[in-house]
């Protein structure tokens, strides 16, 4: 354990990463048709949020019920750029004011609002996708963590933010597209994102970015910061008395989680072709937590599987038995808290892995590496 903890990847981590990479880049593309692959591309965008939540919630003990806000802000930034590109004067010549997005025209706006202007540039947009949510997270984080607000209060306040942003987006129809969101997105710098091939390429871009995020998350886990986070989660005061600035670590990890969610949101917009307030509010935000919880709140790889599995179950169940889905999701929330607090990753580490090892003839127990950061104590 001591020797492996200094390296970025232990052998177990490497195998885990390799299996995930194989699944995302080889198994799924071969096994699924274009339509299903696009759906899994959408699920992958949620996995970004789930990975961020593992860092914030599983390791840091900060439960944010407002990840949808960051997902949404990232997604809206991207959607604004794509919408402006789609709203050329030629495309919108039937409007009373050509050259502005259609929903603005429907709401009697005659000029593009000033804060939309920067989103004409892809470069600024890409920066904004990360920067806007991170700055927002930073403000919330500074205000809350400096005053030592945490736990359930933090959860409720972040949930309030999710509610506020949704109401704001729906209310300001002329500026935001209202409840329909920003739809009818066509091209990215002239590249048609609606075609089958584009969706497939975006799926691979998604997978690649997700792996990058996972490596960053792995780095955080293995660094001193990661160990401090777990220490803070379990005994915040002792860490503070040891001379560490607890609030700064919390703010950093919250911002990092927000950045992951924002990347996911921007990729969602590209992959699915729209962004709407239904992805921002309280319900999606808390669903994102369940992706993470199902996968295992302490396992970054587990979170990816959690996001994929829950969403896949949601799609297939609500296709055939829509009334069962809510019951299933509700049951999942309860089960994952009461029966499997460590989610799929916990089940794997406890039951599957030892047998797998035994099967492979290795007597080496798998426990030590996992014991370092298991059992969430709250």
């Amino acid at each position, binding site marked *: 354990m001591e020797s492996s903890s200094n390296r970025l990847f232990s052998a177990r981590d490497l195998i885990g990463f390799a299996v995930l990479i194989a699944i995302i880049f080889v198994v799924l593309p071969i096994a699924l048709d274009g339509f299903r692959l696009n759906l899994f591309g959408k699920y992958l965008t949620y996995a970004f949020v789930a990975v961020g939540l593992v860092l914030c919630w599983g390791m840091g003990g900060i439960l944010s019920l407002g990840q949808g806000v960051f997902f949404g802000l990232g997604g809206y930034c991207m959607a604004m750029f794509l919408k402006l590109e789609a709203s050329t004067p030629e495309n919108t010549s039937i409007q009373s004011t050509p050259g502005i997005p259609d929903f603005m025209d429907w709401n009697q706006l005659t000029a593009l609002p000033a804060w939309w202007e920067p989103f004409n540039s892809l470069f600024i947009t890409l920066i904004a996708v990360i920067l806007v949510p991170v700055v927002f997270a930073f403000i919330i984080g500074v205000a809350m963590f400096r005053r*030592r*607000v945490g736990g359930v209060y933090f*959860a*409720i*306040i972040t949930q*309030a933010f999710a509610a506020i942003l949704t109401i704001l987006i729906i*209310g300001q129809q002329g500026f935001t597209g209202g409840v329909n969101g920003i739809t009818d997105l066509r091209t990215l710098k002239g590249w048609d994102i609606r075609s089958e091939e584009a969706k497939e390429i975006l799926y691979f871009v998604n997978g690649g970015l997700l792996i990058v995020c996972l490596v960053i998350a792995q780095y955080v886990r293995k660094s001193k910061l990661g160990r401090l986070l777990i220490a803070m989660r379990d005994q915040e005061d002792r860490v503070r008395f040891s001379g560490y600035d607890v609030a700064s670590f919390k703010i950093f990890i919250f911002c990092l989680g927000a950045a992951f969610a924002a990347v996911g949101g921007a990729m969602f917009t590209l992959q699915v072709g729209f962004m709407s307030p239904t992805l921002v509010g309280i319900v999606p935000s808390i669903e994102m937590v369940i992706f993470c*919880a199902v996968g295992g709140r302490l396992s970054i790889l587990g979170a990816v599987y959690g996001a994929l599995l829950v969403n896949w179950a949601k799609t297939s169940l609500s296709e055939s038995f829509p009334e069962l889905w809510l019951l299933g999701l*509700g049951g999942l929330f309860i089960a994952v808290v009461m029966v499997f607090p460590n989610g799929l990753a916990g089940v794997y580490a406890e039951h599957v892995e030892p047998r797998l090892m035994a099967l492979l003839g290795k007597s080496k127990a798998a426990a030590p590496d996992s014991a370092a950061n298991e059992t969430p104590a*709250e």
Partner: protein
Amino acid sequence: MFSDYTMNELGAIFAMQGFAGLILFSVFVLMALGLAIIFGQMGVINMAHGEFMILGAYVTYLTSNLFADYLPSVFGLYFFVAMILAFIASGALGLFVEWVMIRHLYKRPLDTLLATWGLSLILQQVYRSVFGAREVGVSIPDWMMGSLPMTDMIEVPINGIFVMVLATGISLAVYFMMYRSSWGLQVRAISQNRMMADAVGINTAWTDRLTFGIGCGVAGVAGSAFTMIGSTGPTAGQLYIVDTFLVVVFGGAASLLGTIASAFSISQAQSIMEFFLSGSMAKVLTLLTVVGILMIRPQGLFTLKLRK
């Protein structure tokens, strides 16, 4: 923004909006009282609180149908029976939920939050399967219809007054339970120091269960009262939950008076702004103000002085 109105009209506007705010205030108080007991005293996050209210509303709906079918002569009185039934139904469900779920999670507040959210999803689906996805309304008894003219420009709806009276009554009842009964004494003792309460012989497990049950029962009564001013749908409970939590947190979690004061300020701010801005902007501004104040003063308006 005031120049378009005469002084007289402006006065009437403020009076009417103020009254609308008072009704909203009563609604908030009713919603928040149950939560103030459960969250404020026990520290349990019950995300299914809205669904307990809706259960009370559906019980009222069923009672009104029963009275209309079998006891039409005393239909005007059904509401009082319904309120008691709503309290019993929601309270019983609360006791059950505490026994099955909550008592295992007292040490993990964040997990309670997720589990009760799951419960709320299940309850929503149950309501949808049993009562249908469409909203149902109860038939309001005749004596509650119409409105009272106060002056020639100001008139107030009777059902609004009724809800206000009800909110006052239930607040008083909760106050007496919390501060004048032995149960209330035990609850407060436990919330201040669980170990000591246990040591002096208070049955903490049973008190916890009873507290949760009573909190849910109060939610049921609140839901019952809501049928007088609006219709009930399976997902209506979820709309209230953020408001309700903010009211309780803003008031200072352990203080009943704080809950009422915060319900008053939030509802008045919202209803007065609603007249001049669009409804959604009024809501956004109110919530932002509340969240902003909470960031500066996280302990809420009123705090209990406690030696930790």
